């Protein structure tokens, strides 16, 4: 049987082809003092895949994402991106990783245009005219071309998320990470963001990891889903198997019922 070639990632801006990257999480453990945020978590994300990491608040999803992009150092275990240690300085130089932060993390002192142009300017990826083309193309993809001169404080929540995605696109990423991309958005805007994520993956084959507790997003766009609970990976598989979960913890997470006779808040840890 012939060996399968890795899927080809096509640059969203320049349409240049480059191999998509894979991510391996290997026995990742993270302690904050006595609190264990991640407990020996292991899984892989295939090149070109959309992997959605779900779990209740405080389950360690965002912490795991920060490890992938090198913002946190593991207590033990490691994160490999295309076989390279994610914490190594050269990894970020060789592999373009873009993280869309939960609150956007836009630079408030810069206009939308300058937010997007910062990366290519700082890395000297062409002259001002070619940077302008890249930025306007990214804004066009996200239907933001009329907001180029606005400042982040003038944008709605949904627009800020779209600008954050556009800023990530200008980086021409091989790996896109999204931290709660649909949180604080109305259902329609949440669906729009989900469509954008899926379109970017389908058209450009960017490897995508999404951290979310949005059930619709997971079931709608994920190739595979992982569920973290209390820092442990309790589920890894296709989204279809989450429609009728057998694990009561997952069933409760996916289909929570309001029980006024035995309210669950009585059993919450303080």
């Amino acid at each position: 049987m012939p060996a399968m070639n890795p899927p080809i990632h096509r640059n969203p801006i320049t349409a240049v082809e480059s191999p998509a990257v894979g991510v391996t999480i290997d026995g990742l453990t993270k302690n904050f003092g006595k609190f264990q945020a991640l407990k020996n978590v292991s899984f892989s994300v295939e090149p070109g895949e959309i992997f959605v990491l779900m779990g209740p608040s405080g389950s360690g999803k965002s912490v795991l994402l920060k490890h992938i992009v090198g913002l946190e150092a593991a207590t033990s275990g490691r994160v490999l991106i295309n076989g390279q240690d994610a914490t190594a300085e050269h990894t970020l130089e060789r592999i373009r990783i873009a993280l869309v932060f939960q609150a956007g993390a836009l630079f408030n002192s810069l206009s939308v245009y300058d937010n997007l142009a910062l990366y290519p300017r700082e890395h000297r990826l062409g002259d001002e005219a070619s940077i302008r083309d890249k930025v306007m193309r990214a804004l066009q993809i996200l239907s933001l071309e009329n907001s180029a001169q606005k400042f982040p404080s003038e944008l709605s929540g949904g627009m800020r998320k779209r600008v954050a995605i556009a800023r990530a696109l200008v980086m021409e990423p091989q790996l896109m990470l999204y931290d709660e991309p649909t949180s604080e958005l109305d259902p329609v805007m949440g669906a729009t963001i989900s469509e954008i994520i899926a379109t970017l993956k389908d058209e450009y084959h960017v490897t995508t990891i999404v951290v979310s507790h949005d059930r619709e997003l997971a079931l709608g766009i994920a190739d595979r889903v992982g569920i973290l609970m209390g820092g442990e990976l309790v589920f890894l598989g296709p989204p279809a198997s989450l429609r009728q979960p057998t694990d009561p913890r997952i069933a409760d997470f996916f289909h929570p019922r309001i029980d006024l006779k035995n309210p669950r808040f009585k059993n919450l840890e303080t």
Partner: protein
Amino acid sequence: MKQLTHFLEGFGSAVQLLFQSARYVGTLPRQRARFIDQCYVIGYTTLPIVAILCFFMGSVLALQSGYSMENFGAKQFIGSLVGLSFARELGPVIVAILVAGRVGSAITAELASMKVYQEVDALVTMNIPPARILVLPRLAAVLVMMPVLAIIGNLIGWFGGAVVCKYVESIAIEPEAYFSALRRYMKFQDVGTGLMKAEIFGFVVVLICCSIGLNTRGGPREIGASVTKAVVVSLISILVLDYFVTKALM
């Protein structure tokens, strides 16, 4: 013990930030716009308050020394006293204190909010070192602007002294006599020493404020706490350094 650990951690991270920034000195020419922007903030926007404060410090110094020196008939030396005090000590210290309060606090607030609202994390994920674009232009700008502010502060302080000497009846020294005494007992080295002190104080203040800002964790409350901490640590550092630098330059 805990406070000592915090102090050593803070000192260590400031030194680390200094070395990180030094690595990118070669990028300064293409950070011209940021450098000029910081020169404007550190220099131009601080100038009015430097002028007001130095004028009145010079005036008060002349008034106080005139009152004391009259008793033993040494009024003619007021010019040299005000001149030397300002050039060697008051000028650099006042300007550094103003830079700490006016600019240092703003730097810490800006960097701390960038840190808290994940803008600094965004820079790191974009492989743009915060030391390069947030710290280096500020350090370079303060090195350029501190001597300018100190010189202007000295001139205005001397002028304040001259105004008091001329118009306060109990002193009544003409500006010619005042400035003649100032020139006679002052050497260029005195002014140079003061400028060097201003340079050191300003650089340390901006480094401390950047370091505290970038090490802020938490939320809006911590931003306020960081600003307070940065100003307090800067003021203490200025006065402690003042002793050692003065001793070293004597």
